[in-house]
């Protein structure tokens, strides 16, 4: 009986309300398939219809400023870089979420990136970890390989993989917009410069041509020069090639577990000595120019709350930013990843946090570094030019 009441209520609400919220996010292909259940659950619970549109953050960065200038917005809830949310929140184009989102319900510090003073301009609706180099357990067993515990062992491992017949290169390099390369680079910076270096670079407290950065970059270029990294190849394509055994290792975020045929065959290790790991939260905001501010706030609170995030992590490849989600909600392989972040410093993504002109320059310069590591000094020079300055 009560089911019928609920059902008819939903129908009535749908007919009367007829509110359709537009959500804009970057997820396409298989990733979208893993995100849609979250929205569908919200639709089911509230009767508010949702229209999902794909827009890459890079494209939004071109488009939103113009829209905001015209007092318009293409969607009601938009997924975007934290740096962007902070900047345009301060300029008054974004609805403050203070009071809608309760910081106490989130991992400590996970909302800092979208906070200006006391005002919250966005929220972290899901998170992903970039733990280190992934390998196939079966591949390691077959070739009698072990995850390294020192830098020397790491080099020895690369050398061993290189000698395996049929291998293109020990480490696969993901190309595309540029973030797969920047993720590896950050891992080197954090390992050899310490977690504080990442924070200092984000704040502009330290120069790119300083010794500490150069030291870490030299480690990276030394293995680039030896040909341990493969040629940058479109990252989903190279994922398949790596899985098929063309490469031994692949540096990737935790979402990889949702993208391979058999997640149980995945193993992962960080560079020996890494004391920090990039915990990349994904952020969302509500533009000031939405037609349905109340519904949009409701959606964003639900999405980033425990209910929405529980649906999300169940799909695999995601780590919740909200507290109070039981570990048993995660698929087994993600549970391993969720454990990795315990005991190390969780750090923000470098280029996402800086944003602006730096981000595309960073990506573009790394593409250069990857194919011509001897140009490291030019790369550093450009990065220093574009970096935030104190």
């Amino acid at each position, binding site marked *: 009986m009560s089911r019928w009441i609920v059902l008819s209520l939903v129908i009535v609400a749908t007919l009367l309300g007829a509110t359709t919220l537009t959500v804009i996010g970057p997820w*396409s*292909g298989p990733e979208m398939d893993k995100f849609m259940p979250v929205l569908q659950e919200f639709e089911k619970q509230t009767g508010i219809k949702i229209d999902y*549109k*794909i827009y890459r953050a890079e494209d939004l960065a071109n488009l939103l400023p113009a*829209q905001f200038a015209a007092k318009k917005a293409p969607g009601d809830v938009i997924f975007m870089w934290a740096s962007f949310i902070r900047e345009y929140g301060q300029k008054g184009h974004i609805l403050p979420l203070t009071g809608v989102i309760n910081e106490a319900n989130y991992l400590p510090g996970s909302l800092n990136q979208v906070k200006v003073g006391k005002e919250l301009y966005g929220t972290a609706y899901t998170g992903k970890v970039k733990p280190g180099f992934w390998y196939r357990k079966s591949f390691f067993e077959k070739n009698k390989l072990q995850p390294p515990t020192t830098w020397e062992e790491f080099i020895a491992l690369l050398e061993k993989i290189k000698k395996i017949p049929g291998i293109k290169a020990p480490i696969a390099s993901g190309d595309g917009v540029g973030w797969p390369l920047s993720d590896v680079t950050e891992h080197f910076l954090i390992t050899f410069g310490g977690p504080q270096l990442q924070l200092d670079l984000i704040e502009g407290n330290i120069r790119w041509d300083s010794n500490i950065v150069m030291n870490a970059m030299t480690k990276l270029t030394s293995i680039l020069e030896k040909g341990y990294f493969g040629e940058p190849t479109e990252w*989903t394509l190279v994922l*398949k090639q790596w899985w098929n055994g063309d490469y031994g290792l692949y540096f990737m975020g935790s979402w990889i577990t949702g993208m391979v045929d058999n997640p149980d065959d995945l193993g992962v290790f960080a560079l020996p000595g890494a004391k920090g790991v990039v915990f990349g939260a994904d952020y969302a905001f509500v533009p000031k120019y939405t037609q349905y501010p109340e519904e949009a706030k409701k959606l964003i609170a639900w999405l980033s709350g425990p209910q929405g995030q529980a649906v999300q992590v169940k799909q695999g490849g995601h780590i919740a930013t909200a507290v109070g989600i039981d570990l048993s909600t995660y698929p087994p392989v993600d549970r391993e990843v969720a454990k990795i972040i315990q005991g190390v410093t969780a750090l923000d993504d470098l280029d996402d946090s800086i944003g602006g002109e730096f981000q595309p320059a960073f990506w573009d310069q790394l593409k250069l570094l990857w194919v011509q590591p001897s140009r490291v000094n030019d790369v550093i020079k450009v990065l220093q030019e574009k970096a935030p300055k104190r």
Partner: protein
Amino acid sequence: MKKKILWTIIGWLVGLIWIVPFVGVLMTATRPLDELLGGCWRVEPFHPTLNNLVGAWNHPTASLKQGMMNSLIVTIPATFLPLIIATMAGYGFSRYRFRTKKLLFALVVITLALPQQTIAIPIFQLMNWLNLVDTYFGLILVHTAWGIPWITFFMRNFFTTIPRAMEETARIDGASDITTFFRIVLPMALPAIGSAFALQFTWVWSDFFLALILIYSPEKLLATQRIPLMRGVYHVDWGLLSSAAIIVMIVPILVYLLLQRYYIKGMIGWSLK
């Protein structure tokens, strides 16, 4: 004779070089990604599929079906409006004498060569002020203005080559200049208008830059704008991307094939006078 055969072979080889990329894209669009990892020319295994084409056409968020519709909605008026306005202007420049003629015609010729980048920022600001940002009307206006110089130039050159005897006769019969233009001149000018139509239509359809600055709502995006969007942030699917490329280029290629004679004439007339 031997020489002739040699040249024929060379000629066909050149043709082959030019068509190979098209074949490659077609192969990529019609086969699953797994078969392509070793190169699209490997035909072993070979499982043709329409999944990619259908996928691009019905793409859940960058649907080309919608994009193609949108492109038509913009392209048709943005082809006819400048055709009418500029044909009139071309006629005016060829038949009348007036004081500012040289100056105005020089203006037409100079604007003919401008890069779109020159007007990008002010056009955005102007459209914003007119409240026409993110509307097709605004984009159509800009395309119209952008098409006028070359069509005017093209039509003027056409009109200077056709004799005036018919117009004079009509005028003696008491028809006004305007009636003469629509009754007598326009029908005679149809071949030239056809050429201008073919080119303007293709160019507006193919435009990316103006749309990039002026149209941004996801559901309003034109077909060309959706091609870069076929890559998600974390996902590039060559099968989908080549399918999208094929779908988007099919319209101008059809126009070209159907109006080939006019198209080539226009291309020659546009540049050679």
